[in-house]
């Protein structure tokens, strides 16, 4: 049986190599995210056919084409909605959602908030570069005040969103931030996010080397401080996480901000799914159930 063979096969990095090489600009932070995701899947030994990588539109959303799993490269901002449907139809799948800050916090902001409160069991990785890249450099929802872009040539006058605080307020049950240049740390966060049962949000600083001259590797490197290095930090403390999420300046925390494991996942809370994934359920309605539906109308 092909299934049994595949199940016992060791998952290697080579199995996860996409059909084409990434076409990101040389030096793009997204390379580091792709490498970390592949490493995490190997370390967790999840077979590629059980993974669905789902993205929206943008540079980082080209991600599913560069990794050999099942993939869906959907519409701008809609990846989380599509991913929710996938997970509810077959909750045996490992669902990864990948995209950028414009895709997730701008056009997809509504789905971002609601998917978190629903605690859909998936890992959402935002490659946050504080700029629109594929459209050649416009202000994004995470661009800083004053940042000059093609769409705001005299400087941004709108306050940026704080993705970590938003996720905390919206009820995400795993919230973390990584830096694409911190490979080992990022891989660890991805593994935690995949293993967490519920909605895992991972905001990753993934510098745009072409359009963002403010938030560069050099800018991030001295600022990022790992929460894991602070042994007093308790990631189960929501208030402490909220406080940490507000830090932005000389010190910017990365790592696991928050995790709680006491909230049921959306698929776990739905009795309809208690007999297993919908995909395997019988298409035909039992005749006594059908009869009872008609009887109600008589």
């Amino acid at each position: 049986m092909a299934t049994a063979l595949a199940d016992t096969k060791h998952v290697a990095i080579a199995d996860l190599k996409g059909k084409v090489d990434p076409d990101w600009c040389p030096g793009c932070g997204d390379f580091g995210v792709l490498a970390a995701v592949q490493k995490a899947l190997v370390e967790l030994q999840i077979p590629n056919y059980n993974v669905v990588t789902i993205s929206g539109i943008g540079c980082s959303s080209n991600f599913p084409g560069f990794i050999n799993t099942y993939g869906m490269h959907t519409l701008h901002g809609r990846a989380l909605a599509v991913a929710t449907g996938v997970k509810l139809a077959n909750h045996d799948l490992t669902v990864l959602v990948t995209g950028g800050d414009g895709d997730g916090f701008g056009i997809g902001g509504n789905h971002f908030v609601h998917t978190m409160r629903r605690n859909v069991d998936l890992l959402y990785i935002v490659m946050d570069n504080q700029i629109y890249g594929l459209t050649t450099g416009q202000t994004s929802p995470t661009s800083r005040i004053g940042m000059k872009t093609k769409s705001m040539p005299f400087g941004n006058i709108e306050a940026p969103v704080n993705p970590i605080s938003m996720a905390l307020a919206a009820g995400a049950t795993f919230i973390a931030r990584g830096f694409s240049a911190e490979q080992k740390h990022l891989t660890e966060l991805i593994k935690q996010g995949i293993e967490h049962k519920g909605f895992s949000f991972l905001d990753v600083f993934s510098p745009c080397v072409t359009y963002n001259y403010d938030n560069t590797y050099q800018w991030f490197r001295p600022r990022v401080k790992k929460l894991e290095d602070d042994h007093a930090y308790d990631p189960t403390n929501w208030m402490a996480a909220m406080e940490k999420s507000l830090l932005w300046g000389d010190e910017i925390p990365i790592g696991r901000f928050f995790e709680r494991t006491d909230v049921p996942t959306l698929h776990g809370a739905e009795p309809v799914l208690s007999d297993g994934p919908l995909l395997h359920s019988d298409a035909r309605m039992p005749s006594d159930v059908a009869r009872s539906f008609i009887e109600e109308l008589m």
Partner: protein
Amino acid sequence: MKQTFAIGIGGAAGQGVATPGDIFAKIFSRRGLHLNAYNAYQSIIRGGHTFLTIRTGPEKVTNMGDRLDLLIPLNQDAMDRHLRLLTVGAACIYNSDTIKPGVAAEGVGLCPLPASKLADITRNKVAQNTLAVGAGLSMMGIGFQALEEVLTEQFKKKGEAVVSENVGIARVGYDYATANFRSFAWPLPVTGNRYAVISGNIAMAMGGAAAGVKFYCAYPMSPSTGVLHWMAAHARKAGIMVRQVEDEIGVVNMAIGAAHAGVRSMCATSGGGFALMSEGLGLSAMMETPVVVIDCQRAGPSTGVPTKTEQGDLWQMLGAAFGDYPRALAAPLDIGDCFKIIPEIFNIADRFQCPGIVLCDLLLSEGRLSVDPKDLDFAPVIDRGELITAASAGPNGGVYKRYKITESGISPRAVPGVPGYTHTAASDEHDEDGVLISDEFTNPAKRRAMMEKRMRKVAGIEAAVPPPVLWGPRDADVTLIGWGSTKGVIEEACEILTEQGISANQLQIRWLVPLHGDAILDILKGPRHTIIVENNYSGQFARYLRSETSFVPDGHIRKYDGEPFMPHHIVEAVKEQLRGKSKLSVPEHEILV
């Protein structure tokens, strides 16, 4: 003309118009009578004016008809608006404590019920309604037992005391009418049949359950919300995952996600929500992931008239999402067809891996019809098409190409989770193996090949869907052309015209895409006078038919006041047009709702 009996119940929202309506509907259907119910109402929870029409008879009743036999006004406003509609032989039952009758036409029976003398109206706020139902049934020649049964079922949950109180009040009304009012000339017959009474929304939801829908999601929007309500209430019994989503953009994309993972997936909305779904339909087409979207039309544009009917969304359906792609678009012809059309369109969507759109409207969605329970077939043909859900054989030649170029345009579809078939489905244009060609790899030859592959499915869909047929005599004087929900009223107009010496036949379009233009032209050739009847301002179907076939009819009958056609609207317009008076008739809706 076929024998029918119609009741109109009018009052303010919150006054309990629906309950007497439900009671009459149950009693009629249990007598083996057909019925059609239509509720004219406004977007208001309390107040305003609601007017429910129930028409019944031993033969199929497809529309509200032209005549009211019994009027039950629950307040003065309803009396003032509708008494003028009654003609000889009709009657009006009203609470004479609070309502003054106006001037009735000759031969109309005014039946005052002194409610406060007959029942304790301080205890029972809907006593006037119950008295009127009892009185009405007496005048229709229906035995009291039928009413007692229905009232007992209705109030059973509230306990024995409430049952006997209501049965008692109904009995008083019944006996009072027997003693004081003249019975209707046509006592309602009994047949051996038994019908289910069903709304179009429930029919579409049940049709989905029968089709094997496992995922349903929606955002509440009148007049489609009834589908969500049925799905939500029956989800656990039916094994369907039902979600209420944050907006219609989320709805269509979530439905596509579930469909992509391999289950039948459906959603419903109205025109405004559909507009938000438009981009998602393109995604379904490009990823070749089948999804079924129901649009329950209401009067537009914009928020429009949320509680009124229209056939104004046709061009939105035809133009939904940019770019060219195969789609299936069908308009159910009546409430029973709302059930049947769902498994049919799922089979098309699944086989051809494209979006299927059901174009319903408020008239069917919220209207109710008696349906033979045998017509609610829970074992329809289910054809999932070329779907790979298990790795039994493995891909041919070792490499799976999700978008393999084939003669039919259909490429076998593997769902996530199957070993050996990993691929990416993209909204970007892609090659056979799913790799994007849209950005740096753009290749005109590949783009052309993929466009042609997808569009080849159009011919397959056309062959899989039957062409329309002409109903009635081929050599009639006039052909009435309609689409979707106007089937019943046009049919009745044809019958009336034929009785009046003008032979008429009907061409009713159910499948809008594919249209089968050649078959339509073949039907319409010849010297007959042709008129297109539709519930919109601009003649959306007439313009579509012309764009597809160059056919121009002799005339048009259109209505865009939010209310459905009544048979006489069409009959009078046809006669006017045959006299050469006009090419465009816009009948006036005489009922003030």
